[in-house]
């Protein structure tokens, strides 16, 4: 199971990727699926659940606006996480 964190700009996604470049658990970035990108183009960082807090913290530190956070469901689809409090 993975999370997608969507950003408006590929520059933001690439900065997150570079930031976690030496982290073996980091998965990568991808073009956000159309149904998740709320009409526009965006890029998402794909991470394991245990990494999401670090990525959100880094995004906050860099001042990146997050377009949405999505959790992968058992059937491979994604559902939006309404609150970014994913500690539980």
């Amino acid at each position: 199971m993975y999370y997608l964190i969507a950003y408006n700009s590929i520059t933001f996604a690439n900065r997150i990727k570079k930031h976690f470049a030496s982290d073996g658990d980091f998965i990568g970035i991808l073009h956000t699926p159309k149904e998740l990108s709320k009409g526009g183009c965006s890029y998402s960082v794909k991470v394991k659940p245990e990494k999401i807090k670090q990525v959100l913290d880094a995004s906050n530190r860099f001042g990146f606006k997050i377009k949405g956070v999505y959790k992968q469901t058992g059937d491979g689809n994604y559902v939006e996480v309404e609150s970014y409090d994913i500690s539980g």
Partner: protein
Amino acid sequence: MIYLDNAATTLIKPRPVRKECLNCLKHYCANSGRSGHKASMKAGEKIFECRQNLAGLFNIDNPSRIVFTQNATMALNIAIKGIISPDSHFIISGMEHNSVLRPVASSGVQYSVAKPDETGLVSPAAVESLIKENTTLIAVTHASNIVGTINPICEIGRIAKKYNIAFLVDAAQTAGIVPIDVGECNISLLAFSGHKMLYGPTGTGGLYISPDINLKPLIEGGTGSVSESMYQPDFLPDRFESGTLNTLGIAGLNEGVKFVTDRTVDELQNYEKSLVTRLLDGLSGIRGIKVYGNDNRVGVVGFTLADRDSVEVANILDARYNIACRGGLHCAPLAHNSIGTASKGLVRFSVSCFTTKKDIDKAIHALNNIAH
């Protein structure tokens, strides 16, 4: 050919720059930030890497605040046209290139010119004396493109900060060859070329925009982001990067920046200084040569040869001696007026790290022959 026109653009590029350009053309010269396929993602990654390396070079915290442009001229236009507001007043130095003078002059904004001394040096006091209540921008070239004189940008930056005025630095001649720290020098806007002392391909340049500066975009259009909106994104770099980026050029520039960083700016500057010292020594022995500028310069030397036309001298150097340099006004009539060389212009020799001592000696020998 002996190439001494590096202030226009560096002709010889480091091997990694050429190699990466070919690699890019073969494998990933795609449109960054538009698609999700491997080539597009790789292009995006390379472009970001270049942004990050440039940020390191200029001590910029946030790489997103660097906007890629075609050249320094475009960067300067984005800065100047983006910051203009009604009833504002600008200060520009008397050593500015047309890429500053023309957008300022044509904008209708009220502006004052800080006169340099006879060597092209712009004093902080000259800038400060022109500040008015409605001054919103101070624009100064870091180093003159006609005589190479380096201006005290950190001192001028302190004045800009004291009066809360935006500070625009034209680093076309210094990025990669003179250390630049945007924070230390209170630089609000740093315009630089990628194809000169950063050794990237032509068609590359950039603009750093500090977080406290709000500019109107010069052009609007597709950015690959917030496509659902009919308005330009409000975040950087997308706000100022409409249209397909120059993936090929930026991939090459990235290697150029790494080359500069690996060699170090200090080492490159010291080497150029040694070439300039050798050149000045040689020129001092030639009757009729008058060199302009002072001892604190980049690798740019402007001179006249008696009353000879500067373009004619440059043409002879090219035709008879296969030496490439530039004569004339170098798109900087304001600067030539300031130092009194507007009527005949200057012959300009400009070096790079690929210029050799032998090249300098041959150029001196050629000028000696032309002079006699």
